[in-house]
Every structure is written in structure tokens, then in C-alpha cells.
């Protein structure tokens, strides 16, 4: 009986997912995907992963959804998207997918005993650092290299998107994000919400050291506020050649790298923190990362430059 809500949620997720893939109109597909994202964040809460739930809601549903909706708006309309492929093709693909799903399902219904876990190791080493949120500790201490490299992935993704700038526009600003029809309501929201949003973003980063939350979640909220302001046409996207913009993008990775290399002198090597200062160092790194993430996410949504530099 206690499984009933979970079963209902899973059923909803899978229905929304099937709809997302099967529906003809691509805008409907994007909306379906956003719904899946929001339902998934509930699933993450049920999996006792509040940090992931926040990330999924902010990035998986929110930022990705915005990105895809914007793509929809800019793609030329097509009458119908789901051209039915050759029957042999979809039967074969369907079969292959079912086999893979069945294989995965067969494995998940036979859990190993005792469960494989690193939780005891993670718990045993937490004390040294003085942080309360184990996920933050994993991200910024135990597996800091992954997190650092993943920030570099974000910078590279931004460079990759900027590569698609037509030659004559290099250095200019991305296309405006404003809606076709200016809206008083949207403008009001963009004036009222950002102060609150920024507080929430900062709170998420600050709070992330000890409670669910952290750089990604906070950074995404900050990015969302910035995007809102750009969509309401209160600000234009900045030119990609701007030094301030470039410096904000690399601020996080650089602070992280500096903290990492400092470990050679003040602790036991790269990316190790002296126990007495671990918490302040991690919080500073997180704050810098959150700022960079906000700027990178915003610029990734804005896309390549579409106007010549002034």
C-alpha cells in the first residue's frame, strides 16, 4: 500500500515520457519533456535525493526546457514531425529498446545483498571538513576533480556554442531573448522577482554547505533571474567579447584551480584542504562557481552572437 504514491508517480512519468516521444508537434514534445522533468524532481525526493531534486527542477526541467522552447520558436514551422518510419525499422528498434529495458529491469529487481555503498566511507571522513551536506562534500572534496573538469566542460560548451557565430558577428551580442509581443506582466515580474531570486540563489549556495542546495542549484536560480530580465527586454544579452563577461565565466574554474594548487603548499597536495580552513575555502569556491555557472548557463541559452560588435 505504501508503494501506491510511488507507483502512481512512476506511471505518470512514463506516460508523460511516451507522450513526449509520440506527440506530433515539437512544441508539445518540449512541454511533455518539461512535465517529465518536474515529475522527476518529485521522484528524486522519493529517492531521498533532495539535492538532485533541486538540480533536476532547476536544470533538467527549467533551463533545458527554456533552451528547447527557444529552439522551437526559432525553428521554421513544419507541418508534422513524426514521419512514420518503415515498419521494419520501428519494430526492430522497439524490440531492441524492449530488450535493453528488460535487461535493466531484470537487474534492478535483483538487488545485491548487502547493498553496495560508499556511504560509510563518506560518513567516516566527513568530520575532518566540518560540512554538513554529504553531497557537497563529495562534489567539492572527495571528487573535486570531477567537479573541476565538469566546469571546464561548461566553458568548452560555451566556446563550442560561440564557434557557431558567423564570422562577421564575432565579438558581438547574441540574439535578443525578448518575446515577440512585449508584455507588461512579464516586465513587472522581471522587476519584482530578481531581488527575491538573487536572495534565494545566494541562500541556496550558502545553505548548500550544510543542507540540501549548492552551487548548481543556486547558480541556476541566478541564471534564471538574469534570463528573465533579458526576456522582459529590460537588458540585452552582453557582447561576447566583453572582458567582464569572460572574467565572470572563468572566475569559478580559476578560484577552484587556485584552491587546488594551493593545496600543494597549505595541505597534502592538489585539491586537498587543510582541516581548519576546509569550510571557508569550500564556501568561497562554491560562491565563485555559482556566479560562473549563472553566467555560463545564461549565455548558453542566449546562444552564439547574432549581431556585429558595436
Amino acid at each position: 500500500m505504501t508503494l501506491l504514491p510511488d507507483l502512481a508517480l512512476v506511471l505518470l512519468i512514463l506516460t508523460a515520457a511516451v507522450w513526449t516521444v509520440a506527440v506530433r508537434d515539437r512544441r508539445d514534445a518540449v512541454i511533455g519533456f518539461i512535465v517529465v522533468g518536474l515529475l522527476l524532481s518529485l521522484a528524486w525526493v522519493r529517492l531521498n535525493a533532495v539535492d538532485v531534486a533541486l538540480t533536476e527542477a532547476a536544470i533538467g526541467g527549467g533551463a533545458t526546457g527554456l533552451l528547447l522552447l527557444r529552439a522551437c520558436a526559432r525553428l521554421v514551422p513544419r507541418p508534422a514531425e513524426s514521419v512514420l518510419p518503415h515498419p521494419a525499422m520501428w519494430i526492430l528498434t522497439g524490440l531492441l529498446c524492449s530488450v535493453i529495458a528488460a535487461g535493466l529491469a531484470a537487474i534492478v529487481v535483483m538487488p545485491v545483498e548487502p547493498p553496495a555503498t560508499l556511504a560509510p566511507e563518506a560518513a567516516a571522513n566527513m568530520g575532518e571538513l566540518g560540512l554538513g551536506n554529504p553531497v557537497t562534500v563529495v562534489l567539492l572534496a572527495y571528487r573535486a576533480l570531477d567537479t573541476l573538469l565538469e566546469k571546464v566542460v561548461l566553458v568548452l560548451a560555451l566556446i563550442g556554442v560561440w564557434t557557431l557565430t558567423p564570422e562577421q558577428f564575432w565579438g558581438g551580442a547574441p540574439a535578443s531573448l525578448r518575446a515577440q509581443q512585449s508584455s507588461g506582466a512579464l516586465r513587472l515580474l522581471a522587476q519584482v522577482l530578481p531581488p527575491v531570486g538573487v536572495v534565494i540563489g545566494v541562500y541556496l549556495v550558502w545553505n548548500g554547505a550544510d543542507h540540501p542546495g549548492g552551487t548548481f542549484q543556486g547558480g541556476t536560480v541566478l541564471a534564471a533571474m538574469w534570463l528573465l530580465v533579458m526576456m522582459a527586454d529590460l537588458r540585452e544579452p552582453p557582447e561576447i567579447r566583453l572582458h567582464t563577461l569572460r572574467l565572470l565565466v572563468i572566475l569559478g574554474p580559476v578560484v577552484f584551480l587556485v584552491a587546488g594548487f594551493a593545496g600543494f603548499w597549505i595541505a597534502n597536495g592538489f585539491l586537498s584542504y587543510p582541516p581548519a580552513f576546509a569550510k571557508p575555502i569550500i564556501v568561497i569556491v562554491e560562491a565563485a562557481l555559482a556566479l560562473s555557472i549563472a553566467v555560463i548557463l545564461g549565455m548558453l541559452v542566449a546562444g552564439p552572437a547574432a549581431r556585429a560588435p558595436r
Partner: protein
Amino acid sequence: MILVDMFTMAAVGAGMFFFLAGTVGLLRFPDTLSRLHALTKADNLGFGFIVLGLLPQSPDVLSGLKLVVVWLLVQLAAATAGQLIAQFVGLERRRDPAA
């Protein structure tokens, strides 16, 4: 204590009723504007009642405050979204009066 719990149950129950009604309206009403009407009802009344019902249950003032902030933010977002959708519908109608 019992009284507080009963209040919570009543308020959350009322909230759920409005959500249910709003969802039915969203699914059954014929055109976008009336669907929007149903949706905003659910957002305003349903969500409002649920927050109201949960308020006495919050362990400290901070959590209660958070609940109120959440309610305010949802109101703001719902109002803006409602406005935007309505505006979009108006735009479509002007462009194509038959729709």
C-alpha cells in the same frame, strides 16, 4: 492541538478540492480562456488553502515564513503566466478570428 490538526485537515482538504475542480476544468473546458480560468482558480484557492492549512504545522517561525514566501512566489508566477497566456490567445484571435 487537536483543533489545529482539524483546521489543517479541513484547509488542505478544501485546497485539494479546488485543485481537483481546477484539473477537471482544465481537461473539460472547451477553449483556452476558460481553461485558464479553471487553472488560476486551482492555483489561487487550492494552493492558498493548502499553505494556510500547513502554516500552523510549521515547527518554527522561519519555516512558516518560507511557506508564505513560497505562496507569494507562486501567486506572482501564476499571475504572470496567466497574463501571458491570455495575451497570446488575444493575439491569435486577432490574427485568425475563426480560432
